[in-house]
């Protein structure tokens, strides 16, 4: 089983960090993983995308992902280039605080008011963690423990003040109910990993 997840948003929304968190969490759970981020010279507000490919077998993928199972859409400014690579029958996670809708009747669309929820929690910068965690909860692609551990590992020493708010955001995202037809894996990861 191989799962491709494409992230899209604008600079400052945590696309690169949350994508790396998902990738790191999956490696901790024994999956094979590839991650490639893409971002422009402009940091805040510029285009930022990332692709994460996860599998329980060695991956067969190109670094430039051709077709993906899932999209994490934090902002729709640059959504069209991701949209064209999402397969029919896929899943689209939408930050409904900023995006009205995406026109993909052939996909399962999960709307999560990630920015509003993170703001309620006093941590608007952690909105990306709300959305990616809701995705993880809906699909079971990684566990909450792996996500929390990966986030703690990736937040640099000079940003430790954000660990607690990121944790609140991850826990809020995991309030999302599992959606059985979106289950990412046939076999859940075991403590020792799937390998």
């Amino acid at each position, binding site marked *: 089983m191989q799962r491709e997840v494409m992230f899209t948003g604008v600079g400052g929304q945590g696309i690169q960090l949350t994508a790396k968190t998902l*990738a790191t969490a999956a*490696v901790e759970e024994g999956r094979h*993983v590839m*991650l*490639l*981020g893409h971002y422009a010279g402009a940091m805040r507000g510029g285009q930022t995308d990332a692709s994460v490919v996860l599998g329980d077998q060695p991956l067969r993928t*190109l*670094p*430039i992902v*051709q077709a993906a199972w899932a999209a994490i859409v934090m902002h729709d400014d640059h959504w069209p280039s991701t949209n064209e690579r999402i397969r029919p029958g896929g899943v689209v996670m939408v930050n409904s605080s900023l995006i009205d809708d995406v026109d993909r009747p052939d996909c399962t669309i999960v709307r999560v008011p990630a920015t509003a929820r993170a703001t309620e929690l006093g941590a608007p910068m952690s909105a990306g963690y709300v959305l990616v965690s809701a995705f993880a909860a809906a699909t079971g692609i990684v566990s909450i423990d792996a996500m929390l551990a990966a986030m703690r590992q990736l937040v640099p020493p000079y940003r430790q003040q954000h660990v607690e708010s990121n944790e609140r955001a991850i826990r809020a995202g995991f309030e999302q109910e599992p959606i059985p037809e979106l289950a990412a894996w046939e076999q859940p990861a075991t403590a020792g990993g799937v390998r």
Partner: protein
Amino acid sequence: MTAKLLQGADAITEAALAAGCRFFTGYPMLPFTDLLERMAARLPDVGGICMNAASEIEGANMTLGAAAAGARAGTGSTGQGVALMQETIAEAAQAEIPFVVFTMARGQQDYFQCTRGGGWGDYRTITLAPKDVAEAAEHTQLLFHLADQYRSPTILYGDYLIADTNMSVDVQPRDYGELPDKTWAVDGTLTGTGKSRLLWSWDIGKADRRGLMPDGQWKKVAEKFREIAESEARHETYRADDADVLIVSWGTASPFVDFVVDLLRDDGIRAGSFRPITLWPFPERALEEAARGCSKVLVYEINAGQALEDVRLSIPDRDKIEFIGGVSVDYSGMRQGDLLDVAPLRDRVLRAIQQGAAT
């Protein structure tokens, strides 16, 4: 085995440390910068030294110095910076001083730089072009071994897809066999004994000990490169055995070619691929053999046609050969552009096949 999520720059660093690299220099330049940063962070952990040089020329010459003293040493840059290192690389090749140069190029436009070089004399540089992060880690260790085995600088050709992609990789030390002691190293231990050593591209020697002299040294070096050309060419084929159309590519372009080969096979087209793993020595005989039964040989690389020349030198029937690559750079100038993808590659292959059928 424990895999870790490693960016390509991390994987190369861990592989270099596993290979015994203990000295590294460079000057920041994307997409090489991450490698320099990782080396700077990790080398002190193992008692090594990483120096941020004031320029690529200084960095390359510090690496030459460390290597001359017997250290396993490396340097690197992107193509623009490796351009400045050409004199040092050539001097090291003639004086037989081994180290590894990591060029994290901004695309595929530095094939000639690595395989022809811009230094002086009859020298060559073993150049490996990994297709992905896992192979980059493997090649890094092999290049340190080959450098010491042949006492010659070697080159890893990477790019942003190598340097920036993260993969779950398990970097294990690789054993490529025994190497002779570095009895030639100018390590200072013989100073004042009257037996001190000399490494010199001209090998004129000392007053009491005449060397091979330029004629002898340069013949010796040329002979060594002839032997390397015979024995170290490496390649890989994919679905090439019964192929009618053979697509030649190298480095990070090759996984895209293999992907397209599968698509073409699904459409009933007998496509296959050939990848030189060593850009020098180019696997000429293996390519000639692989292309023998093919009606077309298409060359796909993201430049104006550089490996194309080596393909032409390998295949007697030049009419079979068609170039389907081209210059393609993204907005930043630091990465390959849109041509490096499945759809444009597939279109170009199909167009080449149709044109062939029409004529």
